[in-house]
């Protein structure tokens, strides 16, 4: 799942902040309470028997409005459940407005996430070799109109995910496309309306309330994939016609959409038709949710630190490094570090930067700590140097040192590699896009450019306003700017704890977020083979493939393993994060009096 925000937030150590106000003093005072980068947990437990209503959160109260700031993050471009494949968008919609076959619940004791049923009564029944999954849809779940959700609507919603042409950046382009039967021939109900009549890959029985999905290959992770809102219902026929449906989709969670302005604001209000008994994990505590996208990071920090009435019921999905210590002092436990399996990469265009030496030179030309500091991160806490494609905490993952040891910023080594490839300093021109209009991304780009130039590259920059997500450029093959770029990026989080959700999504030929345009037949073949292996052998196989890809091709440059920090206002109850998605735990938040 992609990270919308090109460079998210940060944090660190020490109880300093004796405001040595007017520039005197002998330096900041040292302190203890060193926070460090926490690895994400390796597995997510399952509880197929959990039923609604969700257990009450201790001390929870009804009412109030929660405002959520997403600094520097433009948020989702539309709200169509089939098209959602970003941490920001999916975490909001899946928790509050759009239900699917399964979902995650946070265990209040351990803080771990557990996979539990949602619209399905359990976590689905596979056949012996995991090629056919049957889900029984519960009978008391409803739409915001009060109409019951039928098996047919769930099947229709799933069938929509076959349409890769209509939803080019949706998760169906990966999981539906490669695991569901018929996906190779059938391009979905909007692109091939005639074929839709005869399509039998997803079938339903309204009387028995069952939905059956047939797989083209063994797919044991269907229950995890079922937690995506793309595996949920959609109103039949024209009512869910894209792209109109993406502007105001019909909700079936505890909240419904009141208004949505892309890159600006999403307002959700209580959905009175939602039946708590039908939902094993969601709550409906606040009356309203206001999400502010592309917020100014410094202003958001200032608001959150002010402790005024507005900030007490607000939460921020990131903070900047200069204020980390203030946040620790002012918020204490309400500053939550959320580990998730997330990685930032540089993606050199595999068709334009053909020499592996140049790609390695790029890895040495990225001034890791400087760029993180410029973008408001604190090296060592929210960002640590990366080596393998798969993040720490993923089973089977091992460190991969393509050049013998951890790559760090080393302009001299970069120049050596460039000359090995036959380039004099200044010969090789890098074309890259970046966001302007916010001090963090501009400062980071300044450091990136300086690092590249010191390493002997020349840099041509293509600025885009922060309201334009760079992914809309990077993933659009027809974009005129994108055609000129030879260095892109991607930030990726696992969709569930398996290499299957990292490597193929990023490196399969033609994959949406394969922004490097990497394509090797041998690797593609392995992407298809590994899911066929016995379950217990798969993690090691993904780990081995990770190493093989990096050492032989080095198509992606892992820049950082990332964690997030969330700042909760003092009147927000149960300030916690969602470890499955790497987002605030929207399902369980409430406003205290």
């Amino acid at each position, binding site marked *: 799942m992609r990270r919308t925000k090109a460079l998210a937030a940060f944090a660190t150590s020490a109880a300093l902040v004796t405001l040595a106000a007017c520039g005197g*003093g002998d330096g900041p005072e040292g302190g203890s309470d060193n926070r460090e980068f926490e690895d994400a947990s390796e597995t997510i437990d399952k509880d197929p028997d959990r039923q609604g209503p969700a257990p009450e959160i201790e001390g929870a109260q009804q009412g109030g409005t929660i405002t959520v700031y997403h600094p520097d993050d433009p948020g989702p471009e539309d709200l169509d459940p089939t098209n959602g494949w970003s941490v920001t968008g999916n975490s909001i919609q899946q928790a509050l407005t759009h239900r699917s076959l399964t979902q995650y619940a946070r265990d209040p004791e351990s803080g771990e996430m557990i996979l539990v049923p949602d619209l399905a009564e359990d976590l689905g029944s596979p056949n012996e070799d995991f090629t056919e999954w049957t889900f029984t849809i519960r009978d008391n779940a409803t739409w915001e109109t009060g109409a019951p959700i039928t098996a047919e609507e769930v099947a229709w919603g799933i069938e929509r995910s076959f349409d890769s042409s209509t939803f080019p950046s949706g998760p169906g382009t990966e999981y539906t496309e490669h695991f569901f039967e018929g996906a190779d021939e059938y391009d979905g109900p909007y692109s091939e309306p005639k074929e839709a009549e005869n399509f039998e890959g997803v079938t339903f029985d309204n009387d028995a309330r069952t939905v059956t999905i047939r797989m083209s290959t063994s797919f044991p992770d269907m229950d995890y994939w079922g937690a995506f809102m793309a595996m949920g219902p959609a109103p039949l026929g024209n009512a869910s016609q894209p792209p109109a449906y993406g502007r105001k989709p019909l909700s079936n969670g505890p909240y419904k959409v009141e208004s949505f302005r892309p890159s600006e604001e999403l307002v959700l209000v209580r959905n009175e038709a939602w039946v708590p008994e039908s939902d094993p994990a969601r709550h409906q505590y606040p009356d309203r949710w206001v999400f502010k996208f592309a917020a100014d990071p410094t202003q958001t920090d200032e608001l959150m630190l002010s402790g005024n009435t507005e900030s007490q019921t607000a939460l921020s999905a990131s903070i900047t490094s*200069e204020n980390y210590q203030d946040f620790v002092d002012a918020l204490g436990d309400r500053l939550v570090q959320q580990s998730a399996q997330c990685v930032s990469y540089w993606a050199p265009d595999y068709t334009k930067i053909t020499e592996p030496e140049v790609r390695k030179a790029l890895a040495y030309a990225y001034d890791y*700590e*400087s760029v993180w500091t410029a973008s408001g991160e604190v090296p*060592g806490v929210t960002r640590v140097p990366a080596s393998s494609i798969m993040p720490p905490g993923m089973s089977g993952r091992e460190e991969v040192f393509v050049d013998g040891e951890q790559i760090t910023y080393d302009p001299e080594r970069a120049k050596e590699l460039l000359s090995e490839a036959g380039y004099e300093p200044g010969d090789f021109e890098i074309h890259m896009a970046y966001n*302007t209009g916010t*001090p963090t991304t501009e400062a980071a780009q300044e450091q990136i*450019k300086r690092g590249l130039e010191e390493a002997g590259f020349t840099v041509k920059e293509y600025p885009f306003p922060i309201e334009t997500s760079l992914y809309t450029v990077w993933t659009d093959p027809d974009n005129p700017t994108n055609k000129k770029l030879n260095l892109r990026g991607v930030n990726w989080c696992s969709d569930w704890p398996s290499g299957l959700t990292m490597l193929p999504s990023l490196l399969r030929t033609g994959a949406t977020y394969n922004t490097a345009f990497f394509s090797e037949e041998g690797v593609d073949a392995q992407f298809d083979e590994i899911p066929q292996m016995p379950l217990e052998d798969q993690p090691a196989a993904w780990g081995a493939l990770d190493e093989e890809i990096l050492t032989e091709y080095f198509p992606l440059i892992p820049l950082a393993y990332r964690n997030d920090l969330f700042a909760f206002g003092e009147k927000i109850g149960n300030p916690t994060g969602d470890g499955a998605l790497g987002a605030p735990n929207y399902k369980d938040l409430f406003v205290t009096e």
Partner: protein
Amino acid sequence: MTDPTAGVQVAEATGHPEPGEGSTAVEGRSPLQIAFGRLKRDKLAMVCAIVVLFFVLVAIFADVLAAIFGVSLDPVRNCDVLECNAANPGVGYPLTGPPYYGFDPEHPFGIAPRTGADNLAHWLYGCRTSLIIAGTATLIASLVGITLGLVAGFAGGIVDKIISFVIDFFLTIPFLLAALTIAPIVIDRFSQSEHYALYQVLSLIGVLSVFGWMGVARLIRGEVLSLREREFVLAARVVGMPTRRILLKELLPNLVAPIVISTSLMLPRLRRPRGRSGVPRHRRERRGQVGRLVGPDDRQRDPVLVQLPAVPDRADGRCRAARALAEPAG
């Protein structure tokens, strides 16, 4: 657009020169000479003039001054000058100078967090950027405003009606809204260009000019309406003086007072939107701008920094020296 009341309070402080003083001393001086004579004796006005001159000199000699102090705009490796190690306290803040350490002669105004940029260098070049944009925009807006105001007021009739309509039309467009609407269009059109920075400056000057001339035009038109019925104009007409000459030699000199007032009020007004990141968000330049020196956080940490961008603003805000100049002349 111009707020004629904005500078009035200052007038009280400047003190009115004695009415008879100048005229008894010397006779036969032009109004301008009389005005300068009074201005010279006004201590507050002279102090203000010196402050303005100071910033003009800073702007002109920015590179010389930067060389003298040994500072530059060139990007530095921020981790060389900032604390990047999360294990150490003060992470994200400079290793020398405020807020945690004493004065650092190499960076007299300190170092900016995050970028590691030198504050003094940005302040010096920022003065230049601000003055160039505000100066050019004021010049263009004044020229357009004066010309249209003169023509409308003097010609009257259908010409006046048309020009007045255009003035009113532009006045109905909300400046901020228009500026914010134009910004993304410009960025979209020119962001891939080689001279993006230049286009940013030009478009800002353009926006400020296009929405800045109406106040002057209205003011001048009103003045001309009353002046053109005065005896000396009538006399000039009777003698058969060409219109161009009446406009330039008879009317214009008598309009010096309102022109000086309105332009001197316009200059700081146009400077401000740039100074404080308020207006077009995408239009801000990446380097060399006073207002961007200091973020809200830095203000809390080091109150001294707050004053840096504010000084030039206050200087030309308070020192509307033209007030003193214009008043006696009128």
